[in-house]
């Protein structure tokens, strides 16, 4: 009977210690989890992403030839495509102001701006139809560069 009591005591002690381990187990698991997250962030930062935009440009009315109209429309479309890439990568600053008097809009102003440096963008396709030139442009950038 005495031995049986001792055995029961030992068994309950083992069970308690097992519970203790089980309670304390999540702490190292959490540390591993945060390490995995930081590793994942590093991997994501090194991952490349493809940004694709379509810029549009219209030729001016007073051109000396259709060729000049095409060239000018294309130039405008390329500039628009670069601007769209800059807006996607860097973001846009927007300032707005509305003047309302007697519950009516008297004056409304919205200004947007972006400034960026773009390198290694590629023109994928150019189309010119009914005076509108469209340029599809792509850029491959690292995830870390995308803010």
């Amino acid at each position, binding site marked *: 009977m005495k031995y049986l009591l001792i055995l029961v005591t030992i068994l309950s002690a083992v069970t308690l210690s097992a519970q203790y381990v089980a309670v304390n187990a999540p702490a190292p698991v959490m540390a591993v989890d945060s390490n995995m997250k930081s590793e994942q962030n590093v991997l994501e930062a090194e991952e490349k992403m493809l940004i694709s935009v379509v810029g549009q440009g219209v030729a001016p009315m007073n051109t000396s030839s259709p060729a000049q109209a095409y060239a000018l429309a294309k130039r405008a479309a*390329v*500039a*628009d495509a*670069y*601007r769209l890439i*800059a*807006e996607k990568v860097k973001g846009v600053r927007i300032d707005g102001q509305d003047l309302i008097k007697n519950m009516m809009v008297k*004056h*409304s*102003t*919205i*200004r*947007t*701006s*972006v*400034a*960026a*440096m*773009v*390198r*290694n*963008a*590629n*023109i994928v396709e150019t189309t010119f139809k009914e005076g509108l030139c469209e340029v599809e442009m792509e850029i491959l950038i690292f995830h870390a560069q995308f803010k």
Partner: protein
Amino acid sequence: MQKCDGTAYNPIIFETRNDKNLKKILFNNKEEFINYIHKLGLIIEHKDSTINFVYTSTTILTLKTKCFKVDFNDNFVRISPLK
């Protein structure tokens, strides 16, 4: 004009067609050259405004200041930026 140092990289080659005038060669190949030089780095400044529902916009593209090495051969010219 100042002297530039650096190593040449990523060259572009044009046919000279017996012409040693770089300006003329670049003009004859302007589409290709502009596309090439844009890839080296381009500063974009864009502003637009909508005032009383009338839209106006201005986009300024500025090339980065860069030094180039230019080598003339018999039939070709090799243009390489310096890093």
